[in-house]
């Protein structure tokens, strides 16, 4: 170095280099965005590190919160469940907003963005088509309309609307209080820093957006497009493949088991024949459909049942819920008890919604499954358009335009125009765009003191179609398939075209009304003392209204397993229900196995057939992880499916023209396929009866033999050593909503099961792990004991916190995966024994 006492050339070089480096360090983050993000994130003061404090659960904490009227006590029990005690409802919902945001702020923001179609702003241009689709279907338009309509109703004095407005405004204030707190304390989730944006204030419209998002997940379907395209290519064979009523036995919990209503059958089979232009439009829309949800979307494999006191050991009902949803981390549910004067409810909450979707209070308990009725509440019409006008019922009307985020959205009287071509518009009438204050209904149910109050509240539940299964402490049980079910008619009085397929939109066919609330499927206190609602069709063939075809309802195997158990058992205990909830018996296997075995017996000289036969002949249809027979059955079934339906698709020319439409066996358990429930029912019927006509006109025995050889060869390629136990194909995976593998969990082996079993393994089995794990399952295993609601149980496979460094990030998974339960601490006084933390929220200022 230079002489310490002289200033020479080297000094200037040192100075120049230093200043240059400093300038580079200052300018780089400004001009190269990723470097700016890295620098911001690594900043010790307001970078990612503050989020570490969010993972800490202090034993005692006092926080000053804006907007509270009085102090609120929040306790966290030893299982991580929040219990919030407020002196009034406003403070209760505000405190809940604060607590939920503290645990799930990034998830909240991501979900509202996913619902409104605003992901590309934070995740990049690859999400533009996703955003466009979400904008197109109308989520944001409807959420804003719903909130404004609720405000108007509240002003008119509607009590449900009043409660909703109060709850959502208080909740929003709570979320925003936490955003302010997190920004002040530099505790924002690191995702915000890494994505370089700040959360906008939460509003009640955002809560309605979450409602829309769930409706989209639960009741939004492109079935009608598929059905129309099938009819276009296959003609009347379509009605055989997708019949109005199931060919396999069903448990119709709401009755109507008599002879079929011929008018309903005729309407269901009266599919409007589309031309090639409309077929192209339908296929284009199909390809734009099913956008990449970044949060869990529901799957139609849920279970709910309730058994009356006359069949239980306590003399009081037991209610069991197992809603099946896609898995993710953070999980979709958040668990809490909310207590205020006249309000005491425990349950699981969605992000953004200040009332439990499933839960119980001191008087009633309830759980939900999807009804899956009437084409998922999504209907399509073809309307003529000319310039800025559309044709309807003899007149031309102006198209309504909306402009959101620079995108023009066009609506006719039915709803959004999804595809336009040659002066024709394929228009979607989605019931999700009707007004429905689900949050208000849930708030009312949360305060119900008996089953009648639940029943009364549900008349205002329009979408999504949900089986509300409930019980009260007075021993009553019931179910209502709540929803708004349209009745289609023709103006000339003729038979309407099937609403399961695309309909003409010239005004000829219209909605003449809706099934009255007293007529929608429901049952209260059935003589059997048993109600099972597992997504199967709720009403039998004699139901006088069109209620959809076999495309939407679940095959019904899960419902049968539960129904038979409950009917044949008495003195039922909570422990019995726990075991039943994790039952691994595959009824589809039980029904098809006799024919499969008979077929295999005809060719036992073949070593593949012999091996399969030897495993299957003594198999009990239980999809247990250590069973090779389970794997063999699943693969024979799958190969048979491919051989029947894929051959049909090729022979009729459906493929390659519509080659992207690719249903798959076992509810779409194979990668890159989707579940088309009618086909599973068709195949079960064929394999049960041994008769494939007219779907499969060849020998069913030969079909089974060939499928078995293919299946065994495939298994041999996977496991040359023969170790193809089901556990090597069956496991669960929890992807992080960030997409990062390090924040994801799995694959973890489970207790056993598949698509047809109570312990659902949605989307798994179609390949050895880890390539094809189940990505969904029972999202909340819930057992409510109406004899003593404080002795109820439940767990969801996730954790309360979205912070991966938190001990409550995924702590429920090891419990859930073993089929174990956690007691639900339902009390107005969480003792210090059960409590790990106490937070006092005080009014600030």
């Amino acid at each position: 170095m230079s002489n310490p006492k002289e200033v020479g050339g080297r000094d200037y070089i040192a100075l120049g280099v230093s200043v240059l480096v400093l300038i580079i360090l200052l300018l780089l983050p400004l001009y190269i965005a990723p470097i700016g993000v890295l620098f911001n994130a690594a900043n010790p003061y307001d970078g990612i590190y503050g989020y570490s404090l969010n993972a800490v659960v202090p034993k005692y904490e006092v926080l000053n919160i804006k907007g509270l009227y009085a102090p609120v006590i929040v306790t966290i029990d030893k299982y991580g469940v929040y219990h919030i005690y407020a002196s009034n409802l406003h403070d209760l919902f505000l405190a809940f907003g604060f607590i939920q945001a503290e645990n799930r702020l990034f998830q909240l923001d991501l979900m509202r963005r996913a619902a409104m179609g605003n992901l590309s702003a934070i995740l990049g241009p690859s999400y533009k088509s996703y955003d466009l689709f979400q904008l197109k279907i109308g989520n944001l338009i409807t959420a804003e309309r719903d909130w404004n309509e609720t405000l108007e109703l509240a002003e008119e004095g509607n009590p449900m609307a009043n409660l909703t407005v109060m709850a959502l405004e208080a909740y929003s204030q709570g979320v925003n209080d936490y955003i302010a707190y997190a920004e002040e304390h530099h505790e924002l989730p690191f995702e915000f820093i890494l994505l370089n944006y700040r959360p906008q204030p939460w509003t009640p419209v955002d809560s309605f957006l979450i409602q829309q998002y769930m409706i989209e997940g639960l009741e939004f379907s492109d079935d009608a497009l598929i059905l129309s395209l099938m009819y276009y290519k296959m003609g009347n064979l379509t009605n055989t493949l997708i019949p109005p009523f199931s060919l396999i036995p069903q448990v119709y919990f709401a009755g109507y088991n008599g002879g079929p209503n011929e008018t309903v059958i005729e309407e269901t089979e009266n599919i409007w024949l589309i031309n090639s232009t409309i077929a192209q439009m339908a296929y284009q829309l199909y390809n734009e459909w099913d956008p990449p949800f970044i949060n869990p979307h529901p799957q139609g494999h849920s279970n709910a049942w309730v058994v009356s006191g006359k069949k239980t050991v306590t003399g009081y009902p037991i209610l069991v819920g197992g809603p099946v949803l896609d898995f993710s981390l953070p999980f979709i549910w958040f668990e809490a008890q909310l207590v205020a004067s006249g309000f005491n409810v425990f349950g699981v909450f969605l992000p953004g919604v200040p009332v439990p979707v499933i839960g119980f209070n001191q008087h009633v308990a309830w759980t939900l499954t999807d009804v899956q009725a009437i084409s998922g509440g999504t209907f399509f019409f073809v309307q003529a358009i000319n310039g800025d006008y559309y044709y309807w019922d003899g007149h031309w009307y102006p198209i309504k335009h909306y402009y959101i985020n620079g995108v023009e959205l066009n609506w006719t009287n039915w709803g959004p125009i999804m595809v336009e071509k040659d002066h024709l518009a394929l228009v979607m009438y989605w019931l999700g765009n009707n007004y429905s204050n689900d949050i208000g209904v849930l708030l009312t149910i949360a305060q119900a003191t008996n089953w009648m109050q639940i029943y009364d509240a549900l008349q205002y539940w329009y979408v999504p179609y949900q089986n509300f299964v409930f019980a009260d402490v007075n021993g009553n049980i019931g179910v209502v398939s709540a929803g708004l079910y349209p009745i289609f008619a023709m103006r000339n009085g003729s038979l309407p075209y099937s609403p399961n397929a695309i309909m003409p939109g010239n005004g000829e066919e219209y909605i003449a009304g809706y099934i009255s609330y007293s007529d929608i499927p429901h049952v209260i206190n059935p003589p059997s003392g048993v109600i099972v609602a597992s997504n199967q069709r709720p009403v039998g063939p004699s139901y006088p209204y069109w209620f959809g075809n076999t495309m939407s309802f679940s095959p019904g195997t899960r419902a049968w397993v539960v129904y038979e158990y409950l009917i044949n058992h008495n003195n039922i205990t909570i422990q019995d229900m726990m075991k039943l909830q994790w039952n691994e018996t595959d009824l589809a296997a039980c029904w098809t196995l006799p024919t499969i075995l008979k077929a295999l017996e005809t060719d036992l000289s073949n070593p593949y057939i012999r091996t399969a036969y030897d495993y299957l002949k003594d198999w009990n249809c239980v999809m247990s992880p250590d069973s090779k027979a389970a794997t063999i059955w699943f693969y024979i079934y799958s190969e048979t499916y491919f051989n029947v339906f894929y051959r049909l698709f090729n022979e009729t020319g459906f493929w390659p023209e519509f080659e992207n439409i690719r249903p798959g066996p076992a509810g779409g358990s194979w990668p890159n396929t989707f579940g088309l429930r009618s086909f599973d029912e068709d195949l079960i019927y064929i394999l049960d009866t041994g008769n494939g006509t007219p779907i499969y006109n060849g020998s069913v025995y030969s079909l089974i033999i060939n499928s078995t050889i293919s299946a065994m060869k495939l298994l041999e390629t996977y496991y040359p050593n023969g170790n193809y136990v089901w556990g090597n194909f069956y496991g669960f995976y929890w992807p992080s909503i960030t997409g990062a593998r390090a924040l994801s969990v799995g694959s973890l082996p489970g207790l056993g099961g598949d698509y047809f079993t109570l312990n659902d393994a949605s989307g798994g089995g179609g390949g050895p792990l880890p390539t094809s794990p189940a990505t969904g399952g029972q999202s909340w295993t819930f057992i409510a004991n109406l004899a003593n609601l404080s002795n109820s149980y439940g767990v969801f496979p996730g954790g309360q916190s979205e912070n991966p460094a938190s001990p409550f990030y995924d702590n429920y998974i090891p419990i859930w995966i073993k089929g174990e339960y956690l007691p639900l601490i339902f009390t107005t006084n969480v003792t210090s024994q059960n409590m790990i933390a106490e937070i006092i929220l005080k009014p600030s200022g």
Partner: protein
Amino acid sequence: MCLRDLLRYSIVFLITLALSYALLYTGIWALTTIAGLVATVTFSREYLKAAISSFIGGITSSGLFLYLNYAVFGGPVLEVAYYAGAVAGIPGYTFLLLTFLLTGIYCVIGSIIGVFVRKIIHKH
């Protein structure tokens, strides 16, 4: 290095550490340059020794900052850094490395400028 130098650069280290720690609270990371500058303008005439002691002072201030503001309250700093790295798609703990390194570099820059300024002052 003689005892006097050891003392001198220990002081440089301590001043850098203290000032850098305090300046980190501004949230303007580059201000930690001042810590290196102030420490060396008063005590140092040698670039290398000043840079080394400032660098160590800078990274120590980062560590101390993370410890006293987060870790001491139970905040899982390492885990958060690791998971944030995973989400950002960069190797685990890159953020920690960057946090230490950048503070050190800012302090080094300050220290070099400080030595230069000291020399100019003494020259006049």
